[in-house]
């Protein structure tokens, strides 16, 4: 079943076309690794899905509802409902520094969904345990390592119970020795059949965990395939070049 359907998506900053007629789909339970050189438009694409960017043309549909249909956006309440199906994890975590870990997790569902604090406390405890941070609930983000921060950010996104999780280079801001703990949490999520799109430079993770790899360059998707196909037998010249450079 197709959860995300993108057709002919166009996005420009001024005269520069950042995304040129992008089309692709994500099925339920897919783990999509999105790779490509810097500036190719990976972040912009991800941000367009959750409406952090306004696109200039094309369509995006999420679980059957159009966020944008041929360049025309849904009404704001609709947009809210549609984007609520997605959670996002940022490169720089973007935790709320004035709130404790527990408060970071609970503030959005409390304010947005008006859920009971009893329910939220149970869920935040479970999610913190899942990312291995049950004993840091009352810490402020400033006291956490980068890897811990990113795990809190993942738990925070999960608190809203999204159907799809988007990751924009979740380990790029981390010291190399801290990437493992974050990748492990993502691997666990993949095993639980979470639908994910992960923009990443971690080719190992893409090979091992993704079931689909998308290669982007200069605002276009040049190649899509299963990890072993795309990594071992890339068809496109630019894909080959890129893979040579990163390996």
């Amino acid at each position, binding site marked *: 079943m197709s959860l995300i359907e993108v057709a002919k998506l166009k996005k420009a900053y001024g005269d520069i076309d950042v995304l040129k007629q992008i089309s692709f789909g994500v099925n339920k339970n897919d783990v999509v690794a999105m790779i490509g050189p810097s500036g190719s438009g990976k972040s912009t694409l991800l941000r367009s899905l959750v409406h952090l960017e306004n696109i200039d043309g094309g369509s995006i549909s999420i679980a059957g509802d159009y966020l944008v249909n041929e360049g025309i956006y849904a009404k704001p309440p609709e947009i*809210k409902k549609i984007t609520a199906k997605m959670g*996002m994890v940022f490169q720089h975590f973007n935790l*709320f520094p004035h709130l404790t870990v527990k408060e970071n997790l609970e*503030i*959005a569902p409390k*304010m*947005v969904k008006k859920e009971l604090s009893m329910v939220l406390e149970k869920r935040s405890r479970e999610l913190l345990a899942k990312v291995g941070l049950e004993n840091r609930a009352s810490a402020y983000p*400033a006291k956490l390592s980068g890897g811990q921060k990113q795990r809190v950010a993942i738990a925070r*996104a999960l608190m*809203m119970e999204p159907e799809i999780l988007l990751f924009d280079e979740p380990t790029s801001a981390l010291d190399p020795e801290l990437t493992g703990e974050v990748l492990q949490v993502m691997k666990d999520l993949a095993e639980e059949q979470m639908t994910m799109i992960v923009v990443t430079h971690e080719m190992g993770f893409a090979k091992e965990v993704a079931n689909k790899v998308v290669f982007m360059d200069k605002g276009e998707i040049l190649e899509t395939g299963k990890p072993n196909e795309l990594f071992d037998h890339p068809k496109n010249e630019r894909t080959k070049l890129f893979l040579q450079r990163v390996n």
Partner: protein
Amino acid sequence: MSIDYMNTILRPMLEGAQVTILLFFIVIVFSIPLGFLLTLAVRSSIKPLAWIAQAYIFVVRGTPLLLQLLVICFGLPMLPGIGEFLVLPRFMAACIGFVLNYAAYFAEIFRGGLLAIDKGQYEAAQVLGMNKWQSFSRIILPQMFRVALPAVSNESITLVKDTSLLYAVAVPELLHFAQTAVNRDFSIVPYFFAGLIYLIITFILTIVLKKLEKRMKFE
């Protein structure tokens, strides 16, 4: 120097200090919210409102507080026609002058505080489904106050000392009574006591503000 003499000069000075402290609290209580409203006005998408707020801040920060106080206390009542309605009790007029002045400074401080907040904070709140108001009140504002606090502290210490400008518009306060005693007794001692009282006030204020800063460190 006898205890009696100290008593005769200190008593009026301490009474004057009450006026100083009263002015301080009135200005803090009114100019901080007003300054915050000015910040919002400057950032407003209603352009004329933003321009007016910017012009206001420019004029107030670009001219001396003393001049502003003189205008409000002595200048406005001289306006033909409406002047007679602008005669206020001197202390109240001075309070208005101080509040209007400090609001402009606080507005600039808060504006800086908002600029210091990473845009990722707005984005994280949006992606979590919060609306503009929720994200502003619960995510942005608390961080703005935290960032602004050291500058607000600084400004409030300056305010303690600026209260002595009441002297120039003839509202009897600490410095006024010190000067009276100096003139009467031809002695430097009252100045010394005045300085000591200001020091004690700023010292207490500093301790309180440091406590507050520590509590808002979020660590």
